């Protein structure tokens, strides 16, 4: 029963990375560029943080994650807008690139492709003091600072999308490209910015995964980037809906973690969020848009 009481707190702990990555995906989607590389950006961020933070501190680790994401975003955008590669395929290629690249760099930097622990990296939970005894409240307060940073960044990103001139430009790039061009703004540049923001958000979300475990764990993202992408469309491409869907998925992750206490097979427990997400997608509750830089490619759903 105790795991049920700690579920809200665990969901908040699990949710930061999904919420920020999903809002990043929304920023890109708003500008008309679908980011299928969120998973790769998260992995890249987690690795860049583990590489830099032990030497230069957590702030530099997050900066490295964001910087690496910018480089990857520039590569993808160059392929899509200059070489006119298909955006979906370019995203998949970026995921492969990161998967292979971080394995090679991990082998070169750490001498292994496996888990590398950095105890000093661990972002410790806040002490709720006497409130720790209270059910639900105690675990809700005992969050890691790295996780709270994610929620703060998510709030800023929401604000940026909803209430700033840049947010307006991003939406215009996706919906009224001609109006943007008439106003003297280059839509392609705005799209690149949106994609870079999306990648940076996902990378910082990935960096927090390394901070939360105090280690570089290959595959630590466990499909969270894809689930963040589903959250964007399950949330009807609105910031509020996206955050709500992300927190719902975070609750699923938290519940599946809780089930491990009952000796449930870890593989089946890990499969639960995918099963639940797949059921929602199969029911037609989350559909990708048909917006794309050019109307060609390997084929899309009807």
């Amino acid at each position, binding site marked *: 029963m105790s795991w049920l009481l700690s579920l809200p707190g665990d969901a908040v702990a699990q949710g930061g990375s999904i919420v920020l990555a999903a809002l990043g995906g929304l920023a890109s989607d708003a500008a008309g560029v679908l980011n*299928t590389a969120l998973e790769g950006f998260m992995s890249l961020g987690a690795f860049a943080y583990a590489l830099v933070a032990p030497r230069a501190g957590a702030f530099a680790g997050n900066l490295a994650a964001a910087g690496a994401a910018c480089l990857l975003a520039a590569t993808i955008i160059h*392929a899509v807008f200059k*070489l*006119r*590669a*298909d955006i*979906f*395929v*370019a995203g*998949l*290629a*970026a995921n*492969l*690139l990161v*998967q*292979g*690249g971080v*394995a*090679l760099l991990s*082998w*070169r930097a750490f001498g292994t*492709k496996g888990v590398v622990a950095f105890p000093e990296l661990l972002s410790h939970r806040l002490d709720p003091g006497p409130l720790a005894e209270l059910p639900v409240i105690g675990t809700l307060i005992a969050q890691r600072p790295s996780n709270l940073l994610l929620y703060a960044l998510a709030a800023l990103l929401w604000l940026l999308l909803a209430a700033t001139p840049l947010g307006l430009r991003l939406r215009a790039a996706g919906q009224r490209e001609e109006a943007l061009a008439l106003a003297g703004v280059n839509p392609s540049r705005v799209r690149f910015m949106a994609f870079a923001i999306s990648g940076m958000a996902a990378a910082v979300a990935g960096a927090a995964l390394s901070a939360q475990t105090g280690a570089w764990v290959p595959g630590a993202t466990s*499909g969270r980037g*894809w689930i963040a*992408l*589903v959250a964007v*469309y399950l949330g009807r491409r609105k910031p509020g809906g996206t955050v709500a869907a992300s927190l719902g998925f975070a609750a699923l992750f938290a519940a599946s973690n809780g089930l491990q206490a009952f000796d449930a*097979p870890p*593989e*089946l427990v*890990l*499969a639960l969020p*995918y*099963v639940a*997400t*797949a059921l929602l*997608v*199969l*029911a*037609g509750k*989350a*559909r*990708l848009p048909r917006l794309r830089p*050019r109307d*060609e*490619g*390997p*084929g*899309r*759903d*009807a």
Partner: protein
Amino acid sequence: MNIPSIRARVSAGSLLRAAAPPLAAIVAGPLVVALFSGDPGTAIASFAFGPVSSAGAASAFVEQSALLALCALGAALAFRSGSFNLGGEGQLYSGGLVAVLAALALSSASPAAALAAALGFGALGGAALALPSALGKRFAGADVLLSSFLVSQAAVLAIDWLIASPLRDAESNLIATKMVSRAILPDRAAFPAGYAPFAALLFAAALALFFARTGEGRAVDLYGGNPTFAKSVGLPVGKLALWPLVGAGALHGLAGAFIALGPAGRAVRGMSGGMGWTAIAVSLLAGNRPLAILPAALLLGWLDSGARQAAVIAGVPFDAALLVKAFVLLLATARLLPPRARGGRPA
């Protein structure tokens, strides 16, 4: 959907576009392995010539390429029908496990019948995993890109558990199922690369004929290119939303069956090894054309086999191949000349 026509006018742009991804693989492959090796010369040599350095290595290379081609034929079938199937990895894994279970259950049958049935069940195992996405697309307009990936991920985890726990062979050091009867496995003296190359050739020819010569093939292309138009001219769009994706799953499942009934003779945990993803690159590299898939599969098969040889001989991590595949995938849909240079055809 962009389906290059065989009769399309050959221009500098189309030649460059076709040549860039394989050239990238040929140039980037050796460069990447050299970069991550203490002995670049050995690494490059083992990468370039390792796949054909011995009869055994060459057989493994051909078999690997054939398996890749089978998966890529499935990917092409789905792509041409407008479904971006990202679930190949799970479909392959499912096919492998189901084939082994069938072979174990049919151990008393004649070897030929048991093998045929096991391969058939393997194809069914892959098809069954593609079916939810196809039904979701048909009846709820569900997005195949997302649904196929999510179903596949869940299935991979579930199959991992099945192989590691209830179906595990306790007497083996491998995390694997029991071994099937040796009698149903290919005679490696007579068929060093197994039966997969024959299946790849057969299905490539059949699919090429299907798309080029049959009305149903043209209907699949038409539906994939413009489903609204396909509906308006009275094509059975409900059927076209379903069977190509299920067929794609079956081809992935068949490849999985060949893997499991290959040298290992059992379902080994993680046996899909990323082949479902590589198959997407092969299919795109070949422009989703069945016959072009064969050389494209040989190219990426060489990349995998070369990287494996470089890993064994020169200690270069196998992941070097992933980097090169990513470049190939990135370039596979790119257009490398501006519209005017391509004859001014609008994008």
